[in-house]
């Protein structure tokens, strides 16, 4: 379970948010909302451990994430604004590489099934460079279906997706949460996923 206590985030001279408390347990998800520039991405990067809060602490199962680093990272899947896709490599190669980064087993059959699920049949051997923006997003999302992480931290996961892919992703998140997973995500849409709480920044 992930919890944050008294988080304060300062960017430059601006204080984005102060004394923020949040907690997300098994089978729950958090919807982080706020205006543009309110600090949603900053909050998510703090939760992922990519930057340090000015004040406050983030804990994973009661331990500060700095100390429980490797246990935390094994359970964390973070999606930033950038796709972390290599344009010159194919979708399969990209998935293989991110699986190696995550320390997960990579089975081609599973990866292929995930790509098919996201409608990329016949495109798994194309360099990612030639795919459309939405298709690139889908390649990224295929990672969600492969990696077994307990906590998903997703920054604007619905950007550039068509209606079908949005449904697919919502289902994937509901399934994950229903199976005792956790998710923290930002989005400007309202989402029909049960078990959610809103964090307003």
């Amino acid at each position: 379970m992930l919890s944050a206590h008294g988080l304060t985030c300062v960017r430059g001279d601006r204080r984005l948010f102060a004394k923020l408390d949040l907690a997300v347990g098994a089978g729950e998800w958090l919807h982080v909302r706020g205006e543009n520039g309110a600090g949603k991405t900053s909050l998510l990067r703090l939760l992922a451990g990519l930057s340090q809060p000015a004040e406050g602490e983030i804990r994973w199962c009661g331990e500060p994430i700095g100390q429980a680093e490797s246990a935390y990272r094994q359970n964390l899947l973070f999606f930033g604004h950038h796709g972390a896709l290599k344009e010159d490599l194919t979708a399969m190669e990209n998935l293989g590489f991110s699986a190696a980064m995550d320390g997960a087993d990579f089975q081609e059959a599973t990866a292929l099934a995930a790509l098919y699920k996201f409608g990329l049949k016949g495109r798994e051997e194309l360099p990612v460079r030639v795919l459309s923006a939405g298709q690139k997003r889908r390649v990224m999302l295929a990672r969600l279906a492969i990696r077994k992480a307990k906590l998903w931290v997703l920054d604007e996961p619905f950007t550039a997706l068509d209606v079908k892919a949005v449904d697919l992703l919502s289902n994937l998140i509901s399934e994950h949460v229903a199976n005792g997973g956790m998710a923290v995500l930002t989005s400007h849409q309202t989402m029909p996923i049960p078990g959610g709480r809103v964090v307003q920044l």
Partner: protein
Amino acid sequence: MNAMLAVMRRDLLMVMRRKSEVLTALFFFVIVSSLFPLGIGPEPALLRKIAPGVLWVGALLATMLGLQRMFAADHADGTLEQMAISPTPLVWLVVGKVAAHWLVSGLPLVLMAPVLGIQFDLDPGALGVLMLALLLGTPLLSLIGAIGAALTLGVRGGGVLLSLLVLPLYVPALIFGAGAVESHISGLGAGGHLSLLAAILTLAVFFAPWAATAALRIALE
């Protein structure tokens, strides 16, 4: 360990898909070190004298060419973030990237150097010492370069800053590397210089990845 090999394999794969980067550095090395004999003219004694220095400076500048891109692409497309939160410690992944950089930009120089050395009328013994010195020296260039590349990550006009940062740190490698060949030619034996080069390399292998990792973490904040 697996992740480190994966980083290496991916970087090499990407180079294979886009060969121009490697070839640019290699051609640069070949052309720069060929211009000197052409410009100076056929004076074997003088050429032998300047050969170690010219070849080493050529190798050093050729390594600089690709240095800025070592982490820049990963930073721009978010791969670096993913590497930073990987369960595998970032320092291992940095080692993987540096190793890939050396295989791509250092090793070809080592293999090319004896061919270029012939233009300077170096005898086979001196060519051997030159290769050995470059074999010890080019990984050092990649390691020190990684610190510079990580420090200037995300800085506008980082290229110039990178050269200013890194070139002074390359001086020991240049002195001992070129010195090894010179002292072999003058009959003093290259052992001392090569040992010192190896000692610096050992130090860099231990410390440079940590320094580069710390710099990358700052760049990601």
